[in-house]
């Protein structure tokens, strides 16, 4: 299917694919923002949640931050490669990013299983409810990003749709930024 003319026009000077990514990110900001605002005001009002928060694994969280930061690096390197027209290299970097996402989710799964074994399940208290909801929603975004990247990497390897590399990268950086705030909010704050 050929692209719609509307898609190829760019009256704002921003290509449509990137423009829609920005709008998606804006709408995601308010989704995460609403949840984070709800969590923050509860956390500030409930000092007793500290005892629950102390059970999160700061080292696992820190390692995951490192993983996401690194995957952001490979995502932006993929963008650079795509910008230079090197689809094969872009695909390679995208797959590295996917690998980073996979490691992130694996660590997350390890954390969740440990915590659930210790009895800290979703309904085990206000902090845990927010913890699983926040990390779960974020994890879903990681997963979605990985799936999208899988498709885009396959196209990029054939030097097709290279502009999408940058867009999925933007999305990935946004997910990274969300985690940058989740890390102190859930693991460090006391």
């Amino acid at each position, binding site marked *: 299917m050929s692209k*719609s003319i*509307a898609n190829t026009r760019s009256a704002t000077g921003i290509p449509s694919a990137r423009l829609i990514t920005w709008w998606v990110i804006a709408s995601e900001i308010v989704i995460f923002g609403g949840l984070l605002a709800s969590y923050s005001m509860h956390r500030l009002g409930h000092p007793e949640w500290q005892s629950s928060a102390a059970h999160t694994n700061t080292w696992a969280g820190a390692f995951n931050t490192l993983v996401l930061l690194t995957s952001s690096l490979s995502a932006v390197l993929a963008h650079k490669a795509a910008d230079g027209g090197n689809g094969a290299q872009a695909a390679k970097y995208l797959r590295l990013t996917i690998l980073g996402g996979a490691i992130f989710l694996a660590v997350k799964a390890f954390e969740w299983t440990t915590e659930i074994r210790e009895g800290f399940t979703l309904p085990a208290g*206000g902090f845990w409810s927010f913890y699983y909801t926040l990390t779960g929603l974020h994890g879903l975004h990681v997963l979605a990003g990985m799936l999208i990247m899988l498709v885009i990497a396959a196209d990029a390897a054939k030097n097709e749709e290279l502009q999408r590399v940058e867009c999925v990268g933007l999305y990935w950086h946004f997910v990274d930024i969300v985690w940058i705030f989740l890390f102190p909010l859930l693991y460090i704050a006391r």
Partner: protein
Amino acid sequence: MSTQLHAAEPGIFRKYLWSTDHKIISMQYLFTGMVMGLVGGYLAYVFRMQLAFPNRDVPGFGLVTPGKYNALVTMHGTIMIFWVAMPVLVAAFGNFLIPLMIGCDDMAFPRINRLSYQIFFFSTVVLLSSFLVKGGAFGGSWTAYPPLSAKGAYNLTPAGASLWLIAVVLEFVAFLLGGVNFVVTAMNGRAPGMKMYDLPMVVWLIVLASIMFMASVGPLVAGAVMLLFDQTLATGFYDPARGGDPLLWQHLFWFFGHPEVYVVLLPAIGIVADVLAVFARKKLFGYRTILYTAWATAVLSFVVWAHHQFIAGIDPRMANIFSITTLIISIPIAEMVFVYIATLYGGSIRFTTPMLWALAFIAEFLIGGVTGIFLGASGADIYLHDTYFVIAHFHYTFVPIAVIGTFAGLTFWYPKMFGRMMNETLGKIHFWGTIVGFNVVFIPLFITGAAGDQRRVYNYALFPEQARPELQHLRTLSTIGLLVMLASQLPFLFNFIWSLRHGERAEANPWRSNTLEWTVASPPPHGNFAEMPTVYRGPYEYGTPGRSEDYWPQNVPDEVLQRP
């Protein structure tokens, strides 16, 4: 995001059900919305009959028990806002008009557009299926305040409550996908020469509505996830006994809920602006004034939400802030209405059916607007909150929006959508029946509300002050009005269906309008424009001095306009 490439093989299925053409998707939204409108109207019929003739079998339904009554009012509210006003005003008109009016072939992302409708359709199925589950449909009112909505033990419809919530969230996702598409298309896809200030008002306001929707719905999506967990996974986000707070939901709901009013208002206002200009043969009185007041309203609407919660247990000092912001929002809206009225000055008004609807919109919306002042004034709201006064007030805003505004748009663009003219006589019968019926429904309700009738009550027998016969007469009168209003939709339905085949064939520009959609054949072919248009001026150049014609289409170059 699907990346499969579909070959353009136009079978029936591909053409009408799996199409990525914005016009087809618009029709899908339109027809789904119209069917849901019939459902919502039927629900209103049932509960108004119960209120007029308590505890008698309602023809076509049966006995209305308290539980059924709650489900009826809940679903009426939910359906009319999320499954009628949103799909028809934002999605159907947005899909149909944006690409045509900005002069391009389709949405920027046609497949995301199709996905949006598919999710919406799925949400419709989920919502309707909740009528069939054990316990029946959700009855905790469309605001779904927890703990009532969170615990099956309280609402007695655990399955219905969860299905309701899932349906609403899916609907939000559908409109988020649709909304980003609208915004990007209008921003990027404009024809050469078309500046942002050359956009027809309806496009501007649908885009603004989509932006508002995007910016406000997020917290409620998060809140809905939390509520769903409360319902199904035994969390305690809204359970005070477990560190949660039921007020949180109310805030998240109304942080979205109030902008949502303007999300559906703005497209209707836009439709009215376009219809008004065409049939008054007048340039809008201050295009930019309308635009700026719309922006001001949009921004302000994010800081007024707690006026829905004055007496909900929020800190009383906060109520003062929200009372002030609420009255401030009346300033841009008043300005906007004045500008609409002023647009008629110096016009040459043709009272066609679409114009009647547009004028009725202004006349009726004024009533809805001014009665809002009573409720925004915190001191008066203590008494009027959650009475029928509120119901009458917001129906005087929502009916002009979702009924009158929609009919203004439908009758105006029908020739373009289907290539046939509608019957004017039937259109006028429909108009007068609807308008008279509508006023007879809701004027009595202002009075019963002022007399203290509280909402969502299936029978006032236990409240001597409310069970007075004079109030009961008013309720009966209101129900009679509804019957008139509903019966008046029959000529419309007949007209709509009959004209599809037998209406007079519409030429490309039957209303002699300026905007780009009228420069292509009716109905527009796939791809819309044989040759992509270039735009030379704004959309409202009517009655320009020195021209033989009283209109001046946007795509006609300047040199051609010298008289032949």
